């Protein structure tokens, strides 16, 4: 295994532990925001899409690169915005006044 690959493997394994540790502390009340928040986080694939967007010259490569960026951005923006919207609803006391 190359040096780079082994470092990547370390990062992968440690991230598994961190992920399980952090996520297992999320209460069931917040499982839907957890899912949409995690959804937004895997939108990081946008970075990968940017890096390969113009890797292949020619129309097919350009179209695929463009699509990758579109999908990645929709994932990031949509994921974070919808999570924010949802979390704003979790309040301890109702804001609406009772008549």
């Amino acid at each position, binding site marked *: 295994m190359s040096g780079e*690959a082994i*470092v*990547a493997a370390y*990062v*992968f394994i440690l*991230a*598994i532990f*961190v*992920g*399980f540790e*952090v*996520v*297992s502390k*999320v209460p*069931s*009340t*917040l499982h839907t*925001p*957890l*899912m*949409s*928040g995690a*959804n*937004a*986080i*895997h*939108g990081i*694939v946008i*970075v*990968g*899409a*940017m*890096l*390969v967007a*113009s*890797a*292949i010259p020619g129309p097919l490569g350009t179209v*695929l*690169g*463009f*699509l*990758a*960026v*579109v*999908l*990645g951005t*929709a994932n*990031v*923006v*949509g*994921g*974070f*915005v*919808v999570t*924010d919207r*949802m979390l704003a*609803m*979790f309040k*301890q006391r*109702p804001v609406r006044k009772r008549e």
Partner: protein
Amino acid sequence: MTVETLIPVAYLIAAVTFILGLKGLSSPTTAVQGNRIAAAGMLIAVIATFFAADVNGGVPLILAGVAVGGVAGFAGARMVKMTAMPQMVALFNGAGGGAAALVAILEFARQRELGVLEVGASLATLLALIIGAVSFSGSAVAFGKLQGLITPKAFRYGGQQLVTGGIAAATALLSLVLLAGAFGGSFAIEPMLLIAVITLLALAFGVALVMPIGGADMPVVISLLNAYTGLAVAMAGFTLNNQLLIVAGTLVGASGTILTRLMSKAMNRSLGNVLFGAFGAATTAGPAGPTAGDDGRSIRSIGPEDAAILLSYAQNVIVVPGYGLAVAQAQHGVRELADLLESRGISVKYAIHPVAGRMPGHMNVLLAEANVPYDKLFDMDQINPEFQRADVALVIGANDVTNPAARSNPGSPIYGMPILDVDKAQNIIVIKRSMKPGFAGIDNDLYLDPKTAMLFGDAKDAVGKVVQELKKTA
């Protein structure tokens, strides 16, 4: 030091913000901030990437893609109704999976042009491609089912498992051919053609995987697809040798895995059973009318005024909401009812079964939207000991998760499924449209319990009438 050397630092910061973001979700009070921190980290990573050498002439293309995707994502996220949240999540999930698959294809083509294909990186690329494509098409089908575009029922045909297995085997075989070529340095078949065929097979596999799964099993499927996309992104990280993608993808993979396990457990079924088992197919008993039970016990039907009286004399009330409540849009009415009872000094709590709704935690979001304070929402383990102290358990649109047969009748298809101990309450009011059995297709013994009173009607109407009656007695 040039700008480019700072890019890995920006990625490191982003990775930390993602962990902080998930950590924030451990409490509703810190969750909003956590999510915003993660979003800021994402922005930092994206801005830094513009300075990467690999982007070179691609900036206009990227900006165009960001504009289109950004508008679509923002509009979708702002407009979606909370009841439609599962399909929205499926959509974003599919988008991420699709992006990961496209990144894999482009990176493979690039490595092929440069002649640097080797077996390790190709394996990661293939995994990113296959898992990403499965997640893409699987999420699309899940979206269609949740949105009602295609039948939400389990779609099954003869030889189904053979077909699904065949697609999987063909995908694996072609992948091995590709890897062998990468290992030997020469390809018997043009590798880009192989990649194209593998992509199509993986897309077909995603469809074949989700089509046979029924609507009520969606909490498991959505969680699983979430884990898949995370894993696909992590694999794309291996391909690109990008640590940030590995960390972020793996975190999501862990989250999806935990949720998948929790959801399967809450239904007392293995993941394999959800994916390949025909649940309820053998036991679709005909709907029984509101008549006598087999052993002479009968169903007691009451009107809204009786329900109001029963509730007004209670001290402790536990509301048990199910998906039927969300379908009827009764959550606001329920909150009004709870407010009325509380203004008279009656304690009201909500018992939430893990699979109430169409995705993990869905019921909590729906009630939060109706301004129900989250400290009144209790999960199954917290609330079950309290049912015996409850004067009234008010079941609205929930069925199988309240069926005592899961505890007592080893012959029942849902035997062993963790349920809410509604039958331990002093009185039980069940608001239900008809005596139609729930998703599992079995009759609910709870309805024959002498303590149970059935209030037949649409959840929203029925709750509204009870509220009217309660106001009269004020």
